[in-house]
């Protein structure tokens, strides 16, 4: 008697569970397949591979932390870190500064705002393509348009921005900064949220332009700055196409544009050192996680949420 009541309750419970969950989980089915088969599964697998030697043809061989130790001794890996950090720390701030400056300019109640917004967005729309990277290579290269222009107008004999290892990375940074359109649109939306009364009140108090910028615009915009910073930083660490195309796939000249992801690609898919490349991938994840954590951790000191962060 007791037994059957219990089993009855269990079956009722299971029925309820089924009724509540069957349809929602059906809707989530594609995502579940994707997240387990194509994200979590491969992540575990690449973590494992990072402790092995693996070339896809012979079975993987466990070598402990050797890949990670090798990374620290690998001058090309260190070079790729240096290139990537230079790129990230130059391009992200410059891009955001440009985006904010132009957004503020356009926010002055200029007529035909949609037209200008379009013009400034077009480089972002097209810039990720191979076509533009190819164009960049030709424009910044020796005998390219930029240098001919500098020579004929200012009489400056400029270096070859693509094949001179000292400058090659700058052409890629310029390409990234050029694509400030998305950040600009986000800043514009943020600027429109700032109540005009704040500016008017501070003008009455006699605050100058600089004061207003640092005491009103920046604090009020800080959540948007925070957001843009996180997105751009994560994206920048993973930059691949411009470096690949502009350097002809090699990261040259003499590894001066050997981006992290480019080196990872070479190791994994040109030399088939897949264990080493997996270790590099996890290294990248850790680097990105650290920087994201730093931004999140410091956010309480510089990001103002109107609703107290809730």
């Amino acid at each position: 008697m007791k037994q059957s009541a219990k089993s009855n309750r269990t079956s009722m419970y299971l029925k309820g569970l089924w009724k509540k969950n069957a349809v929602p989980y059906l809707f989530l089915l594609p995502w579940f397949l994707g997240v387990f088969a194509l994200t979590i599964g491969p992540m575990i697998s690449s973590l494992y591979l990072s402790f092995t030697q693996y070339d896809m043809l012979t079975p993987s061989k466990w070598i402990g932390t050797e890949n990670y130790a090798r990374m620290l001794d690998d001058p090309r890996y260190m070079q790729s870190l240096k290139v990537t950090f230079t790129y990230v720390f130059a391009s992200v701030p410059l891009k955001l500064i440009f985006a904010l400056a132009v957004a503020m300019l356009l926010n002055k109640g200029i007529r035909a705002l949609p037209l200008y917004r379009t013009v400034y967005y077009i480089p972002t729309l097209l810039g990720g393509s191979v076509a533009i990277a190819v164009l960049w290579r030709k424009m910044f290269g020796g005998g390219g348009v930029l240098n001919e222009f500098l020579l004929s107008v200012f009489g400056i004999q400029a270096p070859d921005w693509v094949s001179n290892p000292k400058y090659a990375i700058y052409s890629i940074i310029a390409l990234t900064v050029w694509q400030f359109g998305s950040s600009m649109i986000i800043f514009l939306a943020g600027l429109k949220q700032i109540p005009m009364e704040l500016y008017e009140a501070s003008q009455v108090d006699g605050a100058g332009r600089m004061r207003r910028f640092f005491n009103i615009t920046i604090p009020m915009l800080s959540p948007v700055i925070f957001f843009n910073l996180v997105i751009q930083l994560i994206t920048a660490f993973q930059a691949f196409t411009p470096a690949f195309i502009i350097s002809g796939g090699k990261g040259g000249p003499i590894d001066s544009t050997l981006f992290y992801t480019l080196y990872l690609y070479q190791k994994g898919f040109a030399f088939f050192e897949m264990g080493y490349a997996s270790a590099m991938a996890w290294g990248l994840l850790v680097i990105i996680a650290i920087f994201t954590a730093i931004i999140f951790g410091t956010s309480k000191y510089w990001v103002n949420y109107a609703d107290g962060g809730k």
Partner: protein
Amino acid sequence: MNTTSRAQAMGTHLFVILLGLVMLYPIIWLVVSSFKPSYLIFSDLSIWPKEVTLDNYTKGWSGVSKSSFGTFIGNSIMLGLICVVGNVVSCSMAAYAFGRLSFSWKKVWFALMMVTIMLPHHVTVIPQYVFFFKMGWVDTFGPLFVPKLLATEAFFIFLMVQFIRGLPRDLDESATIDGCGTIQIYWRIILPLAFPALITTAIFTFIWTWDDFFSQLLYLNSPGNYTVPLGLRLFMDSSGESNWGPMFAMSVVSLIPALIIFFSLQRYFVEGISTTGIKG
């Protein structure tokens, strides 16, 4: 308005126009160069070409390594469309569940989904490649579109969840009273109302697939399967000075779809970017 502030406004305006021209200059130069005879591209730098020709376009279209550029474009369009359908369907299904339905472990799965947005895809790419290689899928489009059918671009799920959460619940409730089930509410109410979010997803999926270089480089090997980015790279690799003209011409062609989509659906771009902060 007094004269100084009017002069100031004019100055701002002028500056905005000039800066805009500088920004667009590389693209204008590309378009103009594509109509110049090859020998003039680098010797004559002016924006007004002395000689106009369509040679570059005909030569470029006939392609390199026996594949016409038309093949690359066809491949890219086909791949782009499949990816659009995949992303719209799979991401909207997941978004409906997260945005509207209640079920066990919802918070856990939602948090997992959010984490995957930030994940650099490099930590999955090697095992994925090995997996697709063993399936015999390398040099097919499978590895490029199957992930989209499985909602791996979680960013779009998030975008749609945000949108669906903003839709009034009364509609679902009255539909329930009218006898609509959960599935019908998704199909008849949520999907039509979430149309702007679906369009934003479709637009960015198409453009990102069109521009995606890394995974197409990885998975497509034979020129018959090449897409536009790989086709352009083929030009670059095989190019002496004589080939720059055709390559520029095809570069221009490759930019056209993004421009058409942008100008016909502009407001979805601005809304999509400013409400969700699509990267780029």
